[in-house]
């Protein structure tokens, strides 16, 4: 039973760690801020969920399990909320999403580095 739980825990933690690194690499390599929010979403859901699941296998039925469940539930609730707020702020701040024909260039992500946020919010 102990070995079985250890194997489950290893599998969950390794998979979660790999997904964390994948999300972080996507955070570096993806071309604009909306794509990077997608990569951050991978970390916030699969990475965090699987690592906490692996910790929960090691915790057993103790108080630590309840705390892990609270952390997991809280992150799963707040991550989409803060991502939505950030996406809304970026959209009103004048950062337009990349389209297919545009060069996925670092500079085009910073479309208006001087004036985002001030001036009229774009309604499109």
């Amino acid at each position: 039973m102990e070995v079985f739980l250890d194997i489950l825990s290893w599998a969950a933690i390794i998979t979660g760690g790999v997904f964390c690194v994948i999300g972080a690499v996507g955070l570096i390599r993806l071309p604009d801020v909306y794509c990077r929010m997608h990569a951050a979403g991978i970390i916030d859901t699969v990475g965090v969920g699987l690592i906490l699941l692996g910790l929960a296998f090691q915790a057993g039925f103790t108080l630590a399990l309840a705390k892990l469940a609270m952390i997991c539930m809280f992150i799963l609730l707040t991550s989409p909320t803060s991502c939505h707020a950030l996406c809304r702020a970026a959209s009103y701040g004048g950062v337009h999403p990349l389209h297919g024909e545009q060069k996925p260039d670092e500079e085009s992500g910073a479309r208006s580095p001087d004036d985002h946020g001030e001036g009229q919010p774009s309604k499109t």
Partner: protein
Amino acid sequence: MSMFAAAAVAVLVSMLLALVRALKGPTVYDRILGVNTFGTLTVMLIAVHGFLAGRPEFLDLALVYALINFIGTIAVTKYVGLKELDPAVDQHSGDI
């Protein structure tokens, strides 16, 4: 025990990459996203360290960090978007 060390290494590598994005992100929103991801990974690192050190009381700290991270991200997003923290001068309809 070594599974916790593996998780800590993976989380630390991810934190480093998120910090790179927060430092060099071209727009301010990239920086906010990098700091938000860094905070989420900090929660994970504290939780893993609690198990690694055999002291699960660290999970309380992780919970508090999760709360602070969420509030901080919402506040900074609202401040950058509106240049104002007072909701009475909200230029756009809607909440958050």
